[in-house]
């Protein structure tokens, strides 16, 4: 098909001009070179456009992702689109890769954009499965959440900060602008840079819920997007206080980034404490669907919850869920 489009037969419907102009080449422009002539040759463009259209349209017949699945003799086949939390996306990419290896007829496209986008995309039907790094809210009861891992949120300070722990009142005071110097929390005479997450981030909601702060009350010095951004900001400012995912912070602290994780409610901020359920400021990592009517969606969600992927959950610094 491609070859026919590129080299149409003589009586083909496409107008196939010979050398475009009937006038002799003007003096002085003769030796511009063959490449320029090729570019200026109209029949080259006709062929190129025909080829491009052919390439574009050929696969168009079977690729629109609507999650249609069918059981064939070789097992599952079809295509799934998964969108949502950027925290969860790297993990689901890895799980999807393993799932595709086990079910060669399946393609799973993982996109990102935040928990809010995941939920919106599932509702609008753009995605088959959403990724949400928080529990579903009261106005999201039309959806079902399936927990595939857990993640704790920890307060982080610069490594050189002598403060060992902050009380609930101190954290609330710092984030609402009532406390602005580490001296007031038993530290050095150093102003506090409050690092806060942007609206829509799941860690922000976990943090605000735990400390019972209303977001409009927060007086932030820096607004960051994701965990790495938050960690880099705190690592670069001696007086900063921020909050990020424990899994990420633990790895960064272990690989030499100058940050320290503060305990919450006297419990050390470690992935082990999140796994045991002791750590108070933690969040579930969920897959979200409208229903499990599609067998491909059901099989993939069950696979994500199974022990087969626990090694991958741990490899992405999250905490696996034991059933």
């Amino acid at each position: 098909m491609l070859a026919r489009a590129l080299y149409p037969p003589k009586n083909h419907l496409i107008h196939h001009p010979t050398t475009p102009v009937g006038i002799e080449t003007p003096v002085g422009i003769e030796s511009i070179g063959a490449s320029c002539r090729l570019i200026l040759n109209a029949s080259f463009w006709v062929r190129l456009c025909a080829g491009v259209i052919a390439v574009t349209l050929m696969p168009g017949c079977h690729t629109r992702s609507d999650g249609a699945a069918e059981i064939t003799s070789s097992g599952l086949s079809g295509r799934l689109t998964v969108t949502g939390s950027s925290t969860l996306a790297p993990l689901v990419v890895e799980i999807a890769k393993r799932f595709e290896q086990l079910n060669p007829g399946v393609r799973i496209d993982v996109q990102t954009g935040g928990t809010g986008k995941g939920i919106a995309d599932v509702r609008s039907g753009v995605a088959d499965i959403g990724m949400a790094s928080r529990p579903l809210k009261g106005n999201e009861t039309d959806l079902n959440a399936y927990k595939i891992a857990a993640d704790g949120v920890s307060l982080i300070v610069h490594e050189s900060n002598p403060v060992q722990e902050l009380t609930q009142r101190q954290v609330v005071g710092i984030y609402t602008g009532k406390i602005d110097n580490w001296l007031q929390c038993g530290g050095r005479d150093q102003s506090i840079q409050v690092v806060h997450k942007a609206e829509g981030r799941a860690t922000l909601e976990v943090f605000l819920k735990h400390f019972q702060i209303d977001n409009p009350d927060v007086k932030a010095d820096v607004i960051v997007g994701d965990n790495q951004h938050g960690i880099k900001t705190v690592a670069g400012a001696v007086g900063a206080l921020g909050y990020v995912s424990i899994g990420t912070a633990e790895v960064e602290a272990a690989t030499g980034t100058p940050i320290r994780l503060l305990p919450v409610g006297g419990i050390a901020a470690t992935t082990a404490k999140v796994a045991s359920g002791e750590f108070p400021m933690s969040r579930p990592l969920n897959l979200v669907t409208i229903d499990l009517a599609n067998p491909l969606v059901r099989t993939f969600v069950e696979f994500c919850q199974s022990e087969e992927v626990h090694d991958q959950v741990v490899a992405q610094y999250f905490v696996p869920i034991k059933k």
Partner: protein
Amino acid sequence: MNSLTDRLVSLMIGSAAALVAAVLGWVLLDILYRGIGDLSWEFLAQPPEDAGRSGGIAPIIVSTMLILMVALIAAVPLSLSAAAALAQQRHRRFGWAWIASRCLDVLAAVPSVVFGLFGNAFFCVALGMGYSILAGGLTLACMILPILIHTTEHGLRAVPADYHYAAASLGLSRTTTFFRITLPAALPAIAAGLVLGIGRALAETAALIFTAGYVTRQPESLMGSGRSMSVHIFDMAMNVPAGDGRANATAALLVAMLLIINAAAMSLASKASAKLSGQTAEDMNSRQYV
């Protein structure tokens, strides 16, 4: 007194130029220093593993090239035609050409994330392309159109009017004059615009994350989703713990690709322009001789 001021001023502008060069040098050295450790043949030839922390970026390079190809195929003919139309209107002040070029100025100033949201709403959802290389490439095409049109238009306008008069006196049609005389003479400027457009397209992250998407698999067709190198750098640096090394290696590769593309386009353009100006000089000589 005067010479002292002169020296001071020349010292100031000299150091400003040195500072600008130093910034470029610093960025390049920093990226190379941090990225060179992770660069290897495996990195170029293998798909990513473990969320990108190991393995390579082969499918991502392929996706990047496909997105760029779609963008250029869509944008270059369109911008060439638009620039030709605008350049024709060289003496009129207020007309459709004026309105069109003001519109292009505004389009050039639109932040790329806005193009991303537009591309997602229009190409992915309204036209039903989904997250795909085609949608990403077309979004990028919209984004680089103003740069391409502006540089091409300026290139076409810079062609001496004498060429047109000579062509007219020889009885050439306007179409022939455009394709055989004006366009070849403007090639260096068009190539420079192409370099700028390719640079902007390769660097683009915000417009692609919502259109071409995040999938690291080898793209099977233009309708499949594919992650570009810029999106990969962003994801490695921001979403993947301990992904910095790979982010820097990908950045080093991207910079190397940009430098190679720049050098190639510039040398092609200068060759074409050398040929052209050589001929003009000959013409001038013969005219003097007559």
